[in-house]
Every structure is written in structure tokens, then in C-alpha cells.
């Protein structure tokens, strides 16, 4: 009995100690657990000394294959400007960024700055509401804010406040492998514009036993196929996000058109709608495996297809138009966010660094080397794609971009819908059935 009691006491002691140690370890959390939004006055913040931690993913490589060289240069510049400041860069693969940030937030050990697409799920509106993300309005003048494209700024707004710095705009575009077009004697669409019927006609001309006109994939978090679903006027949620609307006749008709490419017109392979992103890319870009003429991709793929590894003869086209008569694409906005700060002077210094890495010149550099469209109008005026007509054409598509609903639980809603889309794409459900079946789960999530 005594032995058992002794063991129990030991365990309780260790448990209490770990709770105590855990509570003492967080250095980012203020004593009262509430973020302070006061901005440092005067110039005293310039004397602040300490470390600013920045997480970033790999970007374009330099001659030594270092994919973090751009941020390292910015770090050195900033440290030279403010002698007491040290910038610590934490290299984080993009695939791990979301999970790592979530774990860091749960453990109150977040970085000062991280690249976050608020609509992307890693950091959500829930985090903003809980005070994990610092508002940025006070660090920008009205003139500076007016320089951002309004839709880019809108992506980081919540309850009338700005929670992050938009750094890039991306859209999805159709990439046409011109070698296959030439081999089959098919002319690409004029100015990259086509209706759904014209699109189907060309896909039929491109398709034979070995080559298919079109393919893409379906999986949560990927929206390459979605412009087809929206082409007749469908949209997943009502404007106020309180209702599921993706089983409307317009949405069903859009999905039907997408599915028809595989089963009715037979211009897409059996694998279309599967979850294999890499295999779909290889089927378009790899010379040895080339068997798909047209695929939709986010804009990073343009730069990739222009690089040495995948060097492809291609052009950028719009998504085909449906019943609305307007081409539609899905857009996204990337940027940086500042995580909660205790110290006013540090907050101001971090904001300064954020501005240092996202100003007009830096967005120009990113646009040229990293294949993204600037969120600043002053950068666009510098014409970063003057020598890159394909990127310029893709940038023009951003005017057609539709943003995804910014519902706090979008990641779960998206999964519920995409799982049904997969079943429609592999022929196990009719489009109407699939979109109607998603209703129950989506309504359950919305209603929570």
C-alpha cells in the first residue's frame, strides 16, 4: 500500500513540476495573456535590442543552391541598420509550415514573423480572434496602404483591421504544352481565350490512345479544378457564409461539365480527379512521360516550367468560359504576419523588418525570381514581367480571380466538399448527388 502511495506521489510531483516548468517556459506570452496593441512612441524603439525570429520556406536557389539566400541578405541589411538587432531565420519546409506553426501556437512558442496565407488554414481567423496575430494598421500610413491592391489588402482584413502584410497574389491558369499541340496539328486558343465547347473540341483533337487533352487532380486544399465548378455561376457558400450553396443548379452544371471531360467526351484519362499532384505534373512536363496537353496550375508552375529542370514549350491560357460568359479563376493572397508581441518597442522593430522584406523593391525581386504577382501597385508599375509574357498573361488573369470563402472552418468545409468531388470524378456518384451529399457535413460544420 505504502509502495503504491509512494509511486503515486512521485508521479503527481513530476506532473506538477512539468506543469510548472511548462508555464514558465513561454517567453512570448504576456503576463495577463492578452495582447497589447500599443504602438511604441517616438524613436525609442530604434534602440531596442534583441532577436527577431523569422520562419520562412525555401524560395529560389542561388548558385550554391541555397534557397534561403534572399532572406539572409535582408537579415544582414537589417542588422547593419539596427546594431542591437539580431534576426534569426528558421528554415521551415513549406509542407511542414502549417503543422509547425500550429504546434508553435499551441505551445505559445511562436515566431515573430511567418509567411502565412490566412485563407490557407495554417493560421486562421480563429487565431486572429484569439489575439495570436498582431494588427498592422498602425504601422502603415494611409498612402502606404493605398499602394496595395484592394483585393490583396482585403484578404488580410478582419473586423476592419489589417492582420498581416500582403506580399503576393496568385491565380490558377491553364498551361498548354505547345509541343503536343504542334504534334497533333491543333492551334492553341487565340489570346488564350476559349468557351467550354471550343475547349472540348480542341481537347478531342489532342486526344488519341496515348495522349489526352486534359487532366488534373482533386484533393483538399487544391483548387485547380474549381474554376470549372464555378464557370456557370456556382459558389460553395452564401455571401454571409451561413448557408451551403454548392448544390445549386449552376454548381451542379459546372461539376457536370468537368466530369463530362472524362466520361462523356473522353478527353481526360481515368486518373483525372485522383490525388496525385506529382504524377499529373510529370504527365504534362516530363519529356519521357508527356501524355497530357493541358493542365491547370497555380502560377508557381509557370516559373517551374521555364526553369532548367522542366524546360517546357508552353503557353498560358484562361479557363474556358461557361454559362456566365466570363472566364473565372481561383485566386489567393500570400503575405507575412506578425505574431503577438509583449514589448512595444520590439513590436515596432518587427513591423519595421516586415516592411523591409515586403516593400516595392522586394516584391519586384520576388515577382521576377519566385513567380508571384506583386500585391503592391507600385511594384506592378515597375513591370516585373516585361521580359516574361507568360507570367504577364497570367497576371492579367488575376482580374478574373474569385476568392474562396473566408470561413474560419474553411479547411474542414473544403475537405467535406473535395471528398465528394473525388467520388464524382471517379464515377461513383453523379455530380448532383455528390454536391448534395456534401450538404449535411458542411451544414454541420457551419452550424457548430
Amino acid at each position: 500500500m505504502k509502495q503504491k502511495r509512494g509511486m503515486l506521489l512521485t508521479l503527481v510531483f513530476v506532473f506538477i513540476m512539468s506543469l510548472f516548468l511548462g508555464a514558465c517556459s513561454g517567453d512570448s506570452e504576456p503576463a495577463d495573456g492578452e495582447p497589447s496593441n500599443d504602438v511604441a512612441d517616438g524613436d525609442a524603439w530604434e534602440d531596442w535590442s534583441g532577436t527577431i525570429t523569422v520562419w520562412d520556406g525555401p524560395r529560389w536557389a542561388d548558385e550554391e543552391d541555397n534557397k534561403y539566400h534572399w532572406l539572409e541578405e535582408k537579415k544582414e541589411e537589417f542588422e547593419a541598420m539596427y546594431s542591437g538587432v539580431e534576426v534569426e531565420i528558421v528554415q521551415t519546409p513549406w509542407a511542414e509550415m502549417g503543422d509547425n506553426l500550429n504546434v508553435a501556437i499551441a505551445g505559445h512558442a511562436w515566431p515573430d514573423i511567418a509567411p502565412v496565407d490566412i485563407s490557407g488554414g495554417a493560421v486562421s481567423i480563429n487565431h486572429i480572434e484569439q489575439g495570436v496575430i498582431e494588427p498592422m494598421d498602425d504601422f502603415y500610413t494611409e498612402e502606404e496602404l493605398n499602394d496595395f491592391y484592394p483585393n490583396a489588402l482585403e484578404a488580410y482584413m478582419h473586423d476592419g483591421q489589417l492582420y498581416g502584410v500582403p506580399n503576393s497574389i496568385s491565380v490558377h491558369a491553364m498551361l498548354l504544352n505547345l509541343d503536343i499541340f504542334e504534334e497533333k496539328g491543333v492551334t492553341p486558343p487565340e489570346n488564350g481565350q476559349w468557351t467550354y465547347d471550343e475547349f472540348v473540341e480542341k481537347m478531342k483533337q489532342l486526344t488519341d490512345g496515348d495522349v489526352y487533352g486534359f487532366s488534373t487532380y482533386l484533393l483538399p486544399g487544391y483548387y485547380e479544378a474549381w474554376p470549372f465548378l464555378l464557370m456557370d455561376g456556382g459558389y460553395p457558400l452564401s455571401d454571409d457564409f451561413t448557408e451551403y450553396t454548392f448544390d445549386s443548379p449552376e454548381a451542379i452544371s459546372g461539376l457536370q461539365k468537368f466530369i463530362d471531360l472524362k466520361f462523356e467526351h473522353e478527353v481526360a484519362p481515368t486518373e483525372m480527379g485522383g490525388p496525385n499532384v506529382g504524377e499529373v505534373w510529370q504527365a504534362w512536363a516530363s519529356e519521357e512521360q508527356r501524355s497530357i496537353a493541358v493542365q491547370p496550375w497555380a502560377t508557381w508552375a509557370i516559373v517551374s516550367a521555364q526553369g532548367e529542370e522542366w524546360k517546357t514549350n508552353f503557353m498560358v491560357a484562361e479557363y474556358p468560359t461557361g454559362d456566365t460568359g466570363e472566364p473565372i479563376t481561383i485566386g489567393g493572397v500570400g503575405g507575412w504576419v506578425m505574431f503577438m508581441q509583449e514589448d512595444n518597442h520590439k513590436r515596432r522593430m518587427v513591423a519595421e523588418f516586415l516592411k523591409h522584406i515586403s516593400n516595392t523593391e522586394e516584391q519586384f525581386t520576388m515577382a521576377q525570381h519566385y513567380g508571384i504577382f506583386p500585391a503592391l501597385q507600385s511594384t506592378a508599375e515597375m513591370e516585373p514581367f516585361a521580359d516574361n509574357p507568360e507570367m504577364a498573361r497570367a497576371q492579367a488573369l488575376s482580374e478574373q480571380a474569385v476568392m474562396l470563402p473566408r470561413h474560419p472552418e474553411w479547411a474542414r468545409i473544403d475537405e467535406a466538399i473535395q471528398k465528394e468531388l473525388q467520388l464524382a470524378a471517379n464515377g461513383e456518384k453523379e455530380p448532383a448527388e455528390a454536391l448534395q451529399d456534401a450538404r449535411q457535413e458542411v451544414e454541420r460544420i457551419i452550424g457548430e
Partner: protein
Amino acid sequence: MSVQTEFEHSKQGALSHRPHGKKKRKRPTLLQEIKKNKAAYLFLMPKLLFFTVFMLIPILWSFVLSFQEFGVFETTWVGFKNYVDVFESPLFRTSLWNTFLYTVVTVPAFVITALIIATMIHPLGKLSQSFFRSAFYLPTVTSMVIIAMVWRWMYNYRFGLFNYVLGWFGIESIDWLNQTATALPALMIMSILIPPGAGIIIYLAAMNNISPTLYEAAKIDGASPFQRWWRITVPLIKPTTLYLVILSTIGSFQVFTQIIMMTGGGPGNATETIVHVIYKTAFRDFNFGLASAQSVILFFIIMIFAIFQYRWFRTEN
């Protein structure tokens, strides 16, 4: 006093005390035990500390968390709400069923394959045994990520090995990973066909411990090789079988890498498994309370299975 005599002495002592049962020797307390074996506990301390900090506390913590709604700055006690939510979730029920099916198919396959291969290797000479032991164990060193990538290629609709072989017999290609009817079986086949290296090694060790005199006696009595295997080998390695069954059941209930690498839980929810759902709930949805409730349920499911298996095998013994 030699170890042998000390053992005999204590055994006799124990036996001589048992029938009377009057004087029960007072058992030492934990503190006395620690004092007595100071050096041993000192050596054990680092491991025990690691175990406490990285295993015991997180387990206890996740149990506490399962009754809370986790927020960044404050957590609210919600009682059994998370558990109710878990059982009301169709996704969790689907994942539970898929995981159960996966376990029921792959665990017996793993154990039986290991037993058969070990049986075939066992009669070989030392050198041959070593060769086959290494040959079957080496693949298990490979990361599951790599194995999953290779298998994804083998299941490829157009270039995959499986459809190529089916083509020889005039059978139409199957879209293995993209059809609800074939996706989960495809993952099961993959798990079954990966050589059970660890199982083989453990079984071989157990078989090598069986006294050859038993086989010789059975041979003299006219037992056939199969009878010798069935009547001597299989019963005597039953504790090893129990160990492997429990271990592989735990592994199967925690299947994750294959899912995330090959299907992402799709098509539809055809390959959703419990750990994949837990992962998404915690790291995508930031709902650590609900994820903890799911983990606790998984813990109890595995525990019940383990107890059931243990009792079943023990009774048989």
C-alpha cells in the same frame, strides 16, 4: 553462496512457507527498495525521466485535454462534449471501421507470414539462417515514405506493375487507389506483401530456443514434419505469437504514413483511418481537445484488443 544455491534456497523457503500461510513476510516499501538498490535505480533514472517527461505526462495530459476545449490563451472545461462529438462524427465512425478492417486483415496476415517464413528458415544451417534473417529484415529499415512512393508507382493506373501483370491475363486495368472499392484493399495488400522482417527474427529466436530433444522424441513416435510443427513448434512459440499479435495490432491501429502518402484518406473517406483523423483534427483544425478525445478512444480500443488477445492466448495455453 552460489547463485544456484541461493535460488534453490529461496525456492524451498517459499515452498515451505506456502502451506502454513501464517507468517507473511513484510514487503519492503518503494523507498526501502530504492535505498537497497541505489545503483540500479541511478542507472534507470535517465530512462525513467525521459519516459515520464515524454510519454507518461503527455498521455496523462492528453487525457485531461480531452475534457477541455483548447484555446491559445484559455481552455474551457467541457466535460464529455468532445467524446459526444467524436461519436457523432460520421468521419470518425468511418475511420474507425476502416481501421478495424485494416487491422483484422493485416495482423493475421503479418503474423502468419512471419511464422511461415521463420518455419522455412529455421531448419537451415547457421550461415543460411543469418543470410535470410538479414535479407528479410533489411527492407524494414527502409522508410515507409519511400516504400509508399514505390507502391504508389506499382498501383499507377497506366504505368503500374500490377496493371501490367493483369494485362498479361487480359484483365482490364484497375484504378487501384482512386476507387472506393479498391483503395483500402490496395493498402492492405501493400502491408501484407511487405516482408515482416521483425516478426521473422523474433519467431526464429523463439524457435531456436525449443529443445531439439522434443522433436527427436516426436520423430521416434512417428510424428510427421507437419505434426511436429503443429504440435510442438506452434504451441511452444505461443507467447511469441501473443507478443507479435499485440504489437502488430497496435501498429495497425496507428496506420498513418501509408494513408497520408498514398490516398490522403480518399477517395471520399474510403481510406480514412483513426490516426489520420486525429492528425487533421489537431494540426489542421487546431482542435486539440477533440483530437485528445479521439486519441483516448483509440488508446482504449487498443487496450481492449490487447486484453482480449492476451486472455484468449493465455486461456489456450
